[in-house]
C-alpha cells in the first residue's frame, strides 16, 4: 500500500517540509511538500541523501528489549551517579529531549551535548527567515549554499531586492562564488578582525553555519550585539535550537574531558566516533540508543513517531508518524527511559 505523508526534514535546523512516500511500512521516496511555508516543496541534497540512506538501510520492526534493559539497569546501578554521563544531540525531538533531561535530573547524572561549537544565542538577536529576504547586507560565514540551500534561497531573494552579500570562509566555496564579495581567511580565528572591517547597516544579518570554537562564536555574538544587527545560525541537526536551550553544549575538548571523568556513557542519538577518536572510548561502559546503528539498542526514528523540532528561527514544528506501520514494535527513547527508570 502506497501512502504519502507530511514530515519535517531531519537534516539541518532549517525546518523544511518534506512529503515521505512509504510503501508497506517502509520509506521509499520523497515528494515535494509544496505548501510548506519554509521551503515550498524545495529540498536540498543533504535532505535527499539522508532519506536515501534510510531507504537503503536494513529495517527492523521487532526487538527483544527485556535483556538489554536489564543489562542497562545493572550497569546504571553499578556506578555512582556522577560517574554516569548522558550524551545526546539535536537529532532528538522535543518530547524525548525533555524526557532525557528529566531522567538525568532525577538520577543526578551528568548531561552534555556537542553541537559543533555553537552555543545559545539571545532570542532578540535571531532574525526570521523573512527578515533575511528583507535585509540589505548579508554576511554569510561558511558554505551556506551547499549546506543550507534553503537559506541560500532567501539570500538570493534578498539579492534580487538589491541586497549586498559578503561571504567569509576558509576555503573557496559556492557561497563565495555567489556573493558580491568573498573574503577568504586562513582560520576562523581571524573572523572577528574581518567582521570589524565591514561597514554594517541597520538591517544587516549574519548567516553562519560553521565555526572552529565556541570562543569565536561568542565573539561574533558580542559583535552582533554591539552593532545592533542580527545573526541566524544554521545548525547541523534539526533540533539543536532546543538542545542549546536545555543542555550544556560543549566543545570537543570538554566533551573528551567529560568522557574521561565518567565510567558509564549513555549515548542517545549521537555518533561519538564521528566527533572523537575511538581511543577515548576505550575502557568505558557504553549504553547506546540509536535508530541507525545496528549494534545499539534500537529506537524509533523521527519518521516513525509523532514529535516536534524547533528550527533556527525558534519555530517549533510538529510532525506525525509518516509511515504508520502498525507492526512496528520498536520503542521510543521516552518509552525505554521510562522502563529503565522504573527498574533502578
Amino acid at each position: 500500500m502506497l501512502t504519502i505523508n507530511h514530515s519535517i526534514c531531519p537534516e539541518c535546523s532549517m525546518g523544511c517540509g518534506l512529503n515521505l512516500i512509504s510503501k508497506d511500512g517502509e520509506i521509499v521516496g520523497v515528494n515535494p511538500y509544496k505548501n510548506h511555508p519554509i521551503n515550498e516543496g524545495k529540498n536540498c541534497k543533504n535532505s535527499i541523501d539522508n532519506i536515501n540512506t534510510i531507504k537503503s538501510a536494513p529495517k527492523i520492526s521487532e526487538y527483544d528489549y527485556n535483556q538489554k534493559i536489564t543489562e542497562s539497569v545493572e550497569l546504571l546501578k553499578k556506578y555512582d551517579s556522577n560517574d554516569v554521563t548522558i550524551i545526546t544531540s539535536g537529532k532528538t525531538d522535543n518530547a524525548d529531549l525533555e524526557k532525557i533531561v528529566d531522567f538525568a535530573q532525577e538520577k543526578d547524572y551528568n548531561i552534555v551535548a556537542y553541537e559543533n561549537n555553537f552555543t545559545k544565542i539571545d532570542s532578540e538577536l535571531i532574525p526570521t527567515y523573512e527578515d533575511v529576504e528583507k535585509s540589505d547586507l548579508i554576511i554569510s560565514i561558511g558554505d551556506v549554499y551547499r549546506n543550507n540551500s534553503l537559506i541560500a534561497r532567501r539570500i538570493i531573494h534578498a539579492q534580487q531586492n538589491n541586497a549586498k552579500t559578503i561571504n567569509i570562509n576558509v576555503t573557496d566555496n559556492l557561497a563565495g562564488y555567489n556573493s558580491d564579495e568573498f573574503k577568504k581567511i586562513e582560520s576562523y580565528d581571524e573572523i572577528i578582525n574581518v567582521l570589524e572591517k565591514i561597514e554594517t547597516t541597520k538591517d544587516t544579518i549574519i548567516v553562519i553555519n560553521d565555526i572552529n570554537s565556541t570562543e569565536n562564536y561568542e565573539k561574533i555574538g558580542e559583535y552582533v550585539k554591539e552593532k545592533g544587527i542580527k545573526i541566524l545560525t544554521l545548525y547541523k541537526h534539526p533540533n539543536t535550537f532546543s538542545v542549546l536551550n536545555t543542555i550544556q553544549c560543549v566543545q570537543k575538548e570538554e566533551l573528551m574531558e567529560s568522557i574521561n571523568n565518567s565510567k558509564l556513557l549513555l549515548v542517545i542519538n549521537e555518533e561519538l566516533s564521528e566527533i572523537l577518536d575511538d581511543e577515548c572510548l576505550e575502557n568505558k561502559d557504553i549504553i547506546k540508543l540509536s535508530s541507525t546503528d545496528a549494534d545499539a539498542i534500537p529506537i524509533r526514528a523521527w519518521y516513525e513517531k509523532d514529535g516536534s523540532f524547533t528550527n533556527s528561527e525558534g519555530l517549533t514544528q510538529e510532525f506525525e508518524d509518516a509511515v504508520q506501520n502498525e507492526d512496528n514494535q520498536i520503542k521510543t527513547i521516552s518509552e525505554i527511559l521510562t522502563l529503565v527508570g522504573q527498574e533502578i
Partner: protein
Amino acid sequence: MEYLQVKSTNPEILEGGENGGAVTAILLSLLENEDVDGILNMKKHDDVYDGMPSYITTPEELLETTGSLHCAPIMTADIIAKYLKDSKIALTTKPCDAMAIDEIIKRNGLNRDNIFMIGLNCGGTVSPLKAEKMIELYYDVDPKDVVSEEINKGKFIIELANGEEKDVKIDDLELEGYGRRENCQRCELKIPRKADIACGNWGSSKGYTFVEINTERGEEVIQNAIDKGYIEVKEPSEKQVAIRKKVENVMIKMAKKKQKAQLEKEYPSPDELQDILTRCIKCYRCRDVCPICNCKVCSLEKEYLQQSPEEKPDPLLMHGIRMGHMAFSCINCGQCEDVCPVEIPLAKIYQRVQLKYREETGYVPGVTSGKPPMYSPDKEEVAE
C-alpha cells in the same frame, strides 16, 4: 461517439464534483467492477492548498477526492512509474501528466495496458503558497476560509465556507506576478488527448461534464459506466463542441504569446544566465522529480563528470548533460523549477531548447506519435 456530456447518477458525487462528477463516477465504476487494483488521485489533505497524491482502494476514500484542486501542482506520472509500475491502476491526468506518461512509455518505463488515464482538461495550476498570498491580497479573504476553488471563463473563483463566491480575472492576477505557474502559462496542451478520455467543463451544459473519448478503451469504460448505471449521458450540440474548440484555441494562442514573452523578451541574457546557473548546488532534485528522467544509472553522477566542491560549478557538466538526456522530450511540466532550492528558471531553459529541437525535427514530446524520439534507431528524413 467522440464527444459526450456526462453526469453522475450518484448525488454525493454530484454534490462534491465540479461539474457533472464524471471523473469520480467513472473511477468509481472502474474500482467497484475491479477493473483496477487502485486509483491514484489528488486528495485534499489539510486544506485546499494541500493536495496530496493518494493511492485509493476503497469507494469511501474515492468519494473524498471529488472536486478540483488547482493549487496542487503535483506530477503523478513519476509516482506511478516509480512505485506503482506493477499494479493495474486508474489515475487522473492533467495534460502534463499524460504527456509524461507517454514519454515514459516510449522509454519502456510503464505498460500502457496497465493504466487507465482519465484526462482532465487544464488551463493551468497555481502554486499553493502563491495562491494563499494572492487570495489575501486580491480577494481580501483569509485563505483559510476558502473551501473550494475553480478556474472558469478566465477567472480564478473561490468559494467560502458561507457559500459566498468571489472571482478575479486570471490575466489581472498574472500581470501582478500571481495566477498560474509560469510554465502553465506557457503550456500549449490543454486537452490531454493521449488519455483514454478527456474531461472538462468547456462547452458543457450546466451540471454536466464534457467528455472527449480518445481511445477504444475509453469508449468501453464509458459504455460500461452507462450500462452499470454510474453515469447518464447526452450528446453535445455542434455549438457546444465549437465553443469548446474555441476555448482551447484561445488558450493555445495565449500560451504562445506567453512563450514569446517569457522565453525571449524577459529571458535572462547569456551572461545573466551563466550567473544564475553558478548557484546550482547539484542537489539533483530537478532530475529526481523529472518524469522524463528514467535511467537506472545517471550520467550526472559519473566519476569523470564530477567537480570538487571548492571549484566553481560548470553548468555544462550539470544542466548541459541533463539537457542532453532529456531536453528533446521536455514536456514543460515545471516540476524542476518548482523544486529548485536556488531558484534557477530550469523549465524555461529546457523548454527553449525543446522548442528549437521541435522546430528542427517536428518532435512534440508527449503528443507526437510516429516520430522517432531522439535516441530511437529509426531512420527518418530530416532536412540537414
